[in-house]
């Protein structure tokens, strides 16, 4: 019986030591792998970005697609300059009003194009259509196109880039 007890003790001791040694490696391993999930690993500029002279956009003209370029993006270990974040459709609706719509489709994130013959926006992936104002016309998209904040400063059009969650009715920043 004493031998049984001894063997049981040895088994428990072995498991305890083995578990401790295993944890010493597994703990840091899991910490390292999980940590990036809770961090901003790719920075996005929060300041308004320059889209060029405001006067190039005229009342009555078709919407114009403009690339949204961040002067600097930090992506984990890299710092990249002039990174294209996406595109916006720009339209001057009144002499003192410019509207910018994100070209990212609210459905599943494809790039929305302008259908000149129909005079409205069309997403090529799943045929969602949007009015020139960005309202949802037909197709699978749950909401209209996402408007982006713009302002004119010293004659230059400034846009604040926001990426919204796709595939839902509510408009929430991603």
């Amino acid at each position: 019986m004493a031998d049984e007890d001894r063997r049981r003790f040895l088994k428990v001791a072995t498991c305890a030591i083995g578990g401790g040694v295993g944890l010493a490696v597994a703990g840091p391993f899991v910490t390292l792998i999980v940590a990036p999930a809770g961090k901003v690993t790719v920075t996005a500029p929060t300041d308004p970005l320059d889209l060029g002279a405001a006067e190039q956009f005229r009342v009555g003209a078709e919407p114009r697609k403009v690339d949204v370029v961040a002067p600097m993006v930090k992506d984990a270990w890299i710092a990249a300059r002039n990174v294209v974040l996406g595109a916006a459709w720009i339209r001057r609706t009144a002499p003192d009003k410019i509207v910018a719509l994100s070209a990212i489709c609210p459905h599943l994130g494809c790039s929305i194009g302008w259908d000149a013959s129909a005079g409205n926006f069309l997403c090529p992936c799943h045929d969602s259509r949007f009015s020139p104002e960005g309202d949802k016309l037909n197709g699978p998209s749950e909401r209209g196109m996402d408007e982006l904040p713009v302002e004119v400063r010293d004659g230059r059009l400034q846009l604040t880039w926001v990426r919204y969650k796709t595939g839902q009715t509510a408009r929430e920043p991603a």
Partner: protein
Amino acid sequence: MKTALRDYLRERGVSRGGAPATIAGGASFAYVFGAVLMWLLVIEAVTGLALAAFYAPSATDAWASVAYLQDQAVLGWFLRGLHFHAASATVIVAGLHLVQTALHGAYKKPRELVWWLGILLMVLILAWAVTGYVLRWDQAGYWANKVEVGIAAATPVVGGAIRKLAIGGNDYGNLTLTRFYTLHILLLPAIVGAVTAGHVMLARKLGATPLGDRERTARPRWPDQTLRNAIAVAMMMTVLIVYVVAMHGVELAAPADPSQAYDARPLWYFRWLFELRDLAGRAEKLVALAMPAIVLGALIALPLVDRAPTRELKRRLPYLGGLAGLLALIGGLTLASFIGDARDRDLAKRNTLAEQRAQLARKLARDNGVPVTGASDVFFTSPMARARAVFAARCKSCHDAESMDRKGPVIGPGHGNRSWIMAFVRNPSGDQFWGHSKLVKTDAAMKSFDQMPAADLESVVELIYGESGASDIDEAKRKHGSEVFEIGCSDCHARDEGVAGASAPGLFGLGTREYYLSFISNPRSALHMGRDKSEMPRFDKELSVSDRDALAEYLVWLRTATPADAAALDPVD
């Protein structure tokens, strides 16, 4: 429940069931080496997995990703250090395992294959380390690899082909990394895994070599031997973890740079070869290839030459003596190499400089990120780094306050601000200004305006300061200054765009970036100093326009900078 599960698994062929694994002669601490080595392989696999999740095998990104892992990822330094030092531990424990096996005579029939597979594993593990060291793409790993590949390239006949095959073409680059990466994380683990499986299976099948005259009663392996294994593993891990924490992982040198010399040293377990090459002089390449072959040959030959069935120490002395001699030679050479380095003062100085570069690169990578153009360009991410590097190389000897050969005005923080202009106007030939120039010895030098009434002086300084485009101008003073200028200065100087003074520089835009660019490009132009009054060479042919513009930007920055601002800038490489 437990039995049900056991039965389930046994019925489906997962476990053999039946008698538990036994160990001949009973449990012993002498048998723990295999278990410790297995555990070290598991650590390498787990930490390697973690590292791979952060590593980018490309010439532009590799160093940056390792620096990110080491300095920014949570506990990245720990797993990286564990991976590196566990590899060292593997070499040490494998060496002990080998010595012990030799002492016990466990290489003898029928265990020759186990011995040879063990030797093969040792070689594979060393190759594994070589393929891993280059991946960080820092100065240390890069240059060590160049030397190692250089040795392999000295192999008669096939050397050139080996080199091209190893580095993936004619020179070091992206393919070098992707190749060594593939070897390190896919091919070698697979081969080492297979050979280890063979080594362990055979060893288990043949059973442990009985120790001394111990009775050969078989005892269950679990838990007696397992506990001893666990204790040995725990002890080794304690040492390893303490070491990893004390070293804060493992060092990372500056990014690989083919243009920057570096005192390349191989990993410590190749130091004996390094020392041997040093001693061999011109025969170094022969020695570097021949010595490993001799050591390897001796180890492989051991079971073939020592064939007598006896395992008694005394009767195997010649063989063991030979083995001990080889090991002593390796140990002695290793020691000699480290001692030689420790005594080399010049080397210590170069290493200190290299370490400073490494720390600077890592700090800049942390603060600014690494440019997509490659890790070496991280040095140019500190503010105005290019301009400051050009200044140090091309301008400093004539313009720095500390310079012994100064010929022109001192350029430093505050250059061109109000007090600088004031001091200049009051005494242009002062030590800080034209004092060291040839101009001072001629009649053409500007005279001192120290006698001018203070209010007039201040106003004219405001006027000249205003040329820089600075926004903090006192308009009333400037207006008065332009009147003073007409009376006191305009005989020699002009203030209109593109107009040279009658006998002195035009002052339009003085202190703007455009002005500095123009001045640096050609100080001898009539608009500036004129051909005969300036000793400063023209730089429009010497420096690219972007370098000149960078210098101009730097000069503008200096106007509002304090010495503290300048000291706070990261040093340039």
